[in-house]
C-alpha cells in the first residue's frame, strides 16, 4: 500500500503544472469530445482550430501566435470543472467552450472567480441570467430565437395548433420551455408535447403520436441525428404537415442524413454556412475542404469564439485577461472591422448576443434562405 501512495504522489506531481511564459496567446478549449455532446464538440473544436490557423497565418494576435489546447469534458459537469480549473492554472488567456449547459453551469463560477472570459456555445437561456460578467455566447440564445419562431408560425404559417417534439436534455428542454409561453402569447394551441431521449434510435412511436395529434404544424427541436431520424420516421408515417425547426433542424448534417425526408422543412436559422453572407459561405467551403464534412452551427461558433478574443485583445491593445471580458461586454463587433467574426455582432451586458438571423426552407436537399431577420435592437 506504500506503493499506492507513491503512485498517487507521482500522479499528483504530474497534475501540478509549470507556469507558462507569455510568448503565445494560450486559449484553452474545454469542449465535449466524448459522451453525448461529441458531435457538437468536434465541430466546435474544428472551427476553433481553423480560426487559430487563420489568425496565425496573418501574424497572430498583437504579433503573438495563438495556441489552442483542447480538453475533453466527456459531457460531464465534474470533468468540465476539472478542465476549466486546469485551464486557469495553466494561465489560459481565455476559455472557449463548453456547449452543453450542464457543463457550462458547473464551470462558469470558476472562470468568474479567476476573472477570465469564457466564451461558450450554449444556447439555453438560463446561464446569462445569473449576473456572471465573464460568460459570453457565440450565438443568439433560445430566449431570442423562440419568439421569432412563434411569430413566424402565427404570421406566415397561420398555424392554430402545434405539435412540439423536443429532446429531453438541457438544450431541448430549454427550447421547449422557452417556446411554450411564446406560443401561448401568440394564441397557438399545443396539440401534443412529445419528449424524446437523447440518443434515441427509434422515432416511430413518436411520429405516430404526432400524426394522430393532427396539428397544423410540427415544431421539432432535437439534436442533429435525432432530427434526421425523426424526419425519416415522420415521412414513413406519412406526416404531411409542415416541419418547423430552429437552426439544427435545417443544418447541413440533418439534410445529409435525412435525405429527401428533409424537403419542405422550414424554420429559423441563427448561424448557417448557407446564409447569404459571403464570409459564412467561404468559411463553410474551407471547412468542408479541410475536414471532409460540412460544418454545422457549432463549427461557426467555435470559429467566431476565437475571433471574439482576437478582436477584444486588439481593441484594448494589450494581452490583458481581465480586459478581454471588459472589452467584450456591450461591444459591437463589425465584420468590416474584423472579418473573422463573419457577421456583425452586438454583445449585450449579460453576454447575450444580438445578430441578424434567417428564415429558411429546405428545397431539394438544399437550405434556401428566404428572409433575413434584423437584429432585435437594431
Amino acid at each position: 500500500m506504500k506503493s499506492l501512495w507513491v503512485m498517487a504522489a507521482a500522479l499528483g506531481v504530474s497534475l501540478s503544472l509549470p507556469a507558462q511564459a507569455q510568448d503565445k496567446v494560450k486559449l484553452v478549449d474545454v469542449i465535449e469530445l466524448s459522451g453525448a455532446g461529441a458531435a457538437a464538440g468536434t465541430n466546435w473544436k474544428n472551427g476553433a482550430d481553423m480560426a487559430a490557423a487563420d489568425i496565425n497565418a496573418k501574424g497572430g494576435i498583437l504579433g503573438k501566435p495563438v495556441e489552442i489546447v483542447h480538453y475533453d469534458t466527456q459531457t460531464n459537469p465534474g470533468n468540465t470543472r476539472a478542465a476549466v480549473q486546469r485551464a486557469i492554472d495553466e494561465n489560459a488567456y481565455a476559455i472557449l467552450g463548453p456547449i452543453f449547459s450542464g457543463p457550462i453551469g458547473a464551470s462558469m463560477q470558476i472562470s468568474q472567480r479567476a476573472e477570465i472570459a469564457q466564451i461558450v456555445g450554449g444556447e439555453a437561456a438560463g446561464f446569462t441570467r445569473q449576473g456572471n460578467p465573464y460568460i459570453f455566447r457565440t450565438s443568439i440564445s433560445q430566449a431570442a430565437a423562440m419568439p421569432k419562431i412563434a411569430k413566424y408560425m402565427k404570421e406566415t404559417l397561420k398555424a392554430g395548433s402545434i405539435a412540439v417534439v423536443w429532446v429531453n436534455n438541457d438544450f431541448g428542454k430549454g427550447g421547449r420551455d422557452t417556446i411554450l409561453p411564446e406560443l401561448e402569447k401568440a394564441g397557438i394551441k399545443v396539440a401534443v408535447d412529445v419528449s424524446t431521449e437523447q440518443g434515441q434510435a427509434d422515432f416511430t412511436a413518436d411520429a405516430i403520436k404526432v400524426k394522430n395529434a393532427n396539428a397544423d404544424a410540427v415544431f421539432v427541436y432535437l439534436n442533429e441525428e435525432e432530427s434526421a431520424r425523426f424526419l425519416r420516421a415522420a415521412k414513413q408515417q406519412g406526416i404531411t404537415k409542415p416541419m418547423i425547426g430552429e437552426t439544427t433542424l435545417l443544418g447541413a448534417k440533418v439534410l445529409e442524413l435525412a435525405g429527401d425526408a428533409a424537403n419542405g422543412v422550414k424554420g429559423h436559422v441563427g448561424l448557417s454556412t448557407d446564409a447569404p453572407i459571403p464570409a459564412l459561405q467561404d468559411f463553410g467551403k474551407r471547412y468542408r475542404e479541410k475536414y471532409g464534412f460540412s460544418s454545422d452551427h457549432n463549427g461557426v461558433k467555435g470559429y467566431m469564439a476565437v475571433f471574439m478574443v482576437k478582436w477584444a485583445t486588439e481593441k484594448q491593445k494589450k494581452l490583458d485577461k481581465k480586459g478581454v471580458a471588459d472589452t467584450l461586454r456591450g461591444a459591437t463587433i463589425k465584420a468590416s472591422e474584423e472579418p473573422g467574426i463573419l457577421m456583425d455582432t452586438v454583445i449585450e451586458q449579460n453576454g447575450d448576443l444580438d445578430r441578424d438571423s434567417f428564415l429558411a426552407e429546405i428545397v431539394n436537399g438544399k437550405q434556401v434562405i428566404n428572409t433575413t431577420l434584423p437584429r432585435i435592437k437594431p
Partner: protein
Amino acid sequence: MAEFIAYLIAGIATGSIYALAAIGFTLVWQTSQTINFAQGEFVMLPAVLILLAVKLFGLPLWAGGLIGIAVFLLIFGAGFKLVVVDPMIKHGVLPLAIATMALSIIMKEGAKDGFSAEAQSFPSLVPTDMINLLGASISLQHLAIIVVAFAAIGLLQWFVGGTRLGRQMQATAQNPTVARILGIPVERMVLLTFLLNAALAVVASLLISPIYLAKFSNGETIGLFAFIAAIVGGFNQVRGALVGGILIGVADSLAAAYISTQYRLAVPLVLLVAIILVKPEGLMGRKEERRV
C-alpha cells in the same frame, strides 16, 4: 383501434431490432458465461468498419463490405474470444464483464476517432418503400428486420436441435466437462459461438444502420435494450431473446403512446423488475438448478 395497431406494429418492428442484438447475448452467455457489455458496440461497429473501408481505400461498397465484415469477424469473433475471454473466464463472471466494458469504450472511441464523431448515413440493402399493414404503415426495412429476426432464431433452433454440430454445441453449453469426455471439441465449439455472435452482429448492423444511421454512440441504446430483452426473455434460451425483444419493443412503444414520453424508459424497466421477481429465469428461460 387503428392507432393501437399502429403502435403495436411499430413496437414489434423495434423489438425485432432489440431481439436481433439480444441473440448474441444469450449465445455467449450459454457457452461461456460471458456477459458482454460491448454487445451494442458489436452491432454499431460493422457498419462503421464498412464505411471506413470504403472511405480509406476508395473501394466500392460491396468490397468495402466484405473487408469490413472479415475484419470484424476476425477481431471481434475470434480475437475477442482468444484474447479477452479465454484468459479471464476461469476468474468468474464479473472481471470479464468489466473487461467487456473497457472493450466497449475502446470500440466506441475508436469508431469516433478513427471514423467520425457524427452520424453517417448507411445504404440500405432493402428498398425503403412503405407498405400498409392492417391500416398502419410499415417500411420494408422494418419488415425485413422482423423477418430476419424470426428466421435467425428459427435457423439457430434448427441448427442446435437438428444438426450434429449444433447438438455438440448445445452439449458444450450445458456441461463442458461432460462434453469433453464425450470427445466433443469444446474449444472449437465455444469459438464457433463467438463467431456466430459476431456474424449475427454484422447482420444486425447491416439491417439497423440504414434506419438508425452509423454513429459511434449508437451501441449505448441498442446494447441497453438488447440486454433488458435478453433478461426478460431468459438468458439461457435463444428464443427468449426474440420474445424479450418484442415484448420490450412493444412496451416501449405503448408507453410512449399512452403513459408518458418522459418516463417511457421506465416501463420496460419496471417490466424487467416484475419479471425478475416473479420468474427470475426469464419468460422462456430454463430454471437453473438450486445449489444446496
